[in-house]
């Protein structure tokens, strides 16, 4: 499982594929204050990115991967 949902935090791990987007959206709808821990994430599919952008979810830990982090910040940090 590329996304590990815990009580109020979703942990992203490795490559998060396109199939995860729907579940992520559902989870974010149920947990509007949910936090996202991306430290172990190496890539996420654009569909997931859309969900993050649309939901304005709060990222608790940014990815370690520098390029990914920079791109994500460009999209998610206002």
């Amino acid at each position, binding site marked *: 499982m590329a996304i590990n949902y815990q009580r109020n935090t979703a942990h992203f791990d490795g490559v998060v594929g396109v199939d995860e*987007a729907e579940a992520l*959206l559902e989870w974010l*709808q149920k947990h509007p204050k949910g936090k996202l821990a991306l430290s172990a994430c190496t890539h*996420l*599919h654009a569909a997931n990115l859309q969900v993050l*952008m*649309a939901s304005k979810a709060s990222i608790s830990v940014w990815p370690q991967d520098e390029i990914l982090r920079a791109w994500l910040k460009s999209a998610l940090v206002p």
Partner: protein
Amino acid sequence: MNPLLEQFISEARDFLQGIAEKLMQLETDPGSAELMKELFRLVHTLKGSSGLFEFPEMTRVLHAGEDLLDSVREGHVAYSEALADQLLNAMDFVSLLMDEIESTGNINAKHADNSARLAKALRLLMGDSCAGTSAEAPPAAPLPENQDLSRAARLIALHEIPENLRMQLYLDVLAGTPLSLVEYTPEDDCFFKGEDPFFLIQQIPETVWGKIVAQQSWPPLAELDVYRCQLVFRALTTVEPLVLSELFRYIPEQVHVVAVPASALALPQGDKNGGPVYDDFEGKKSDTQSFQNIVQSQRAILELPDNDAWLTGRLQSVATTLTACLRAIGKSNALPELEAALTAALSTSKAAPLLSWLDDYLPESPGNSHHNDKKNATSGQSMPDRCDPQPSAAEASTIIETSAPEAEPRFGRRAEDNYSSARTLKVDQFKVDRLMNLIGEMVVAKNSLPYLASRAETQYGVRELSREIKAQYAVVNRIAEEMQDAIMQIRMMPVSFIFQRFPRLVRDTSRKLGKEVNLELEGEETEADKNIVEALADPLIHILRNSLDHGIELPEQRRAAGKPAVGRLSIRASQDSDRVVIEIADDGKGIDPDIIKRKAYEKGLIDEAALERITDQEAVNLVFAAGFSTATMVSDLSGRGVGMDVVRSAVEKAGGVVALSSEKGNGTLIRMSLPLSMAVTNVMIVESNNQVFGIPMESVVETVRVARSAVRSIKRRLTAVLRDRIVPLLSLNELLALNQAQRINDDDEMAVMVVRVHDDLIGIIVDDFRETVDIILKPMSGILGGLSGYAGSALLGDGSVLMVLNFKELV
């Protein structure tokens, strides 16, 4: 280049030719449905074949053309000259790509832009007249390169870039680094095509800045369709634009790449009150040039005569300007030296220190060094002269400005343009065959010269003339031989022509049989005459099937036998002097000679005595006997009794021989040897009953004189012992039903030609041996075609006809 591609190129050229022709015909007859249908078919086929290769640029344009023609065919769009123009232009582009493929084997990604534009233009034609149903019509912005549009897009992005990064980029661009703004708007349904735009954008190398935004504001989460892409990606990169085209070559229509000039990076801030200043930023002049001009002006000022009251003021002003310039280009570290130079200049009241500093740090470009010569000219050097845009500055600015392609690209190939000559000709085989026949006649005609020479000498007694004829003959002979060789080369083709279908064949067959086989091909480039190569195809397929079916075992059997589970099948072609040799080897279970012997005996192919006598090697070659099959079960692959005998006869028909060797448990090797060309046959001429006959050299083993006393008759057959073997002797006259005894020479010896027929040696008694000659063998045709005893006929140099015997049928 692989043969498939070569074929595609030559076919595609025909198609392009055809398309152009049809378009021309349509000009005169625009209403013809027949022509339009034909045109559509051509474009459709060409598109289809281009899809076999990785040429998205070509396929895209052709696809658009096909769609357009389809709607014309259906009557949705009317044919117009503009449409024909656009199509011709598109075909010119395809032709250009074809040239590139031919020379480099690939399409440079730089064509992606043009391809997208052409495709768009074609689709636009379709959309325009497509009343109402413009589902496929693109949005009304046909020219993505429209300067204003892209500039606007660029400026939106620019103020999002952090200030310090922008300054750095500004300086880099001034220094000549290419900077491109990429705006990538993926299609809505791109996720369903398996694309991941976020991944793709991250693949851009040397990204200095990036930003992802939504196309419109996000709907509430409950209404969000996660699988409809609404993202826009922007990135600034210093990578070469070519790399970008390569990266986005499949989706050029979704990507805008704009080269960013330095001026675009200087973002005007504050209000526009300072009109002229603002103009400097927005103005047409590039900063490189302005900078150069400033430095030039300072130089001019410094070069004014020093004995002037205003010198001090001038020096300070120049120093201030230069300081500002240095700061602007980020070379603040040079400031102390400038200060020092200024102090020196002020103290000596001379401009020289500042000038030399200027020469050190901002040397004049070579283009205007002539100004230095006038450095000490007393006065009157006017400043405007100095301010002329310098050549180097002008160059620098053009480099930056030449980013947008021409508004309407042309791809050459108009009637008046020069054609790049095609390197391959497609010639009807009939024409080559005609050449071949002609050279054959030429060889014959040439061969009559020696006869003429000898007649000149013996009959007319002109020895001098005879010698000259012979000398001329040598020249003609050499040319004819070279010509023959050249024509032969035309007909040569590599065996890869048939080899290339084997991997698939082996794969499919082994799959069907549940076997694992590794096919190794070697020497595919070996060349042989087209007829030979074609004649090889069927026998080879047969042998391969046999090897797979009977030779290579099932994986578990192989493991049990201590062999790797994956069988090995190798096909090796090589050239051996004037023959092409093909070896097919497998590491399967081989052929058991005992089984072969028993089978052959059961089928009555050999008798009991032979069963005991024949060697294992001879036994395995029994598989070539007609009607022989070892497979107990008839499968759809082999085992129908039409087997190796068919292979053998096919190979022999092409003048080849086939041999098999096998080791039980270790595999089988089949070796075929064929002449490189069937055109020239080397025959030996023999005499019998005052006629001459030819015998192909490949079947001749030796020629001997046998004393009549050495000939014994066994059961009314003549035999002789030659080299410890009993050789049956047959009289040629008898074989040809000529009622005449063979002539015997003065020493009471018979002329015996030992020939190999299949694997037996047979002695043919003839009257006398003559020389060997190269002839062009013509197969018998018409009524004579039924005479199987003759392989064909040939013309001899003296004009007589030589009949070439075919012992395989005759004996």
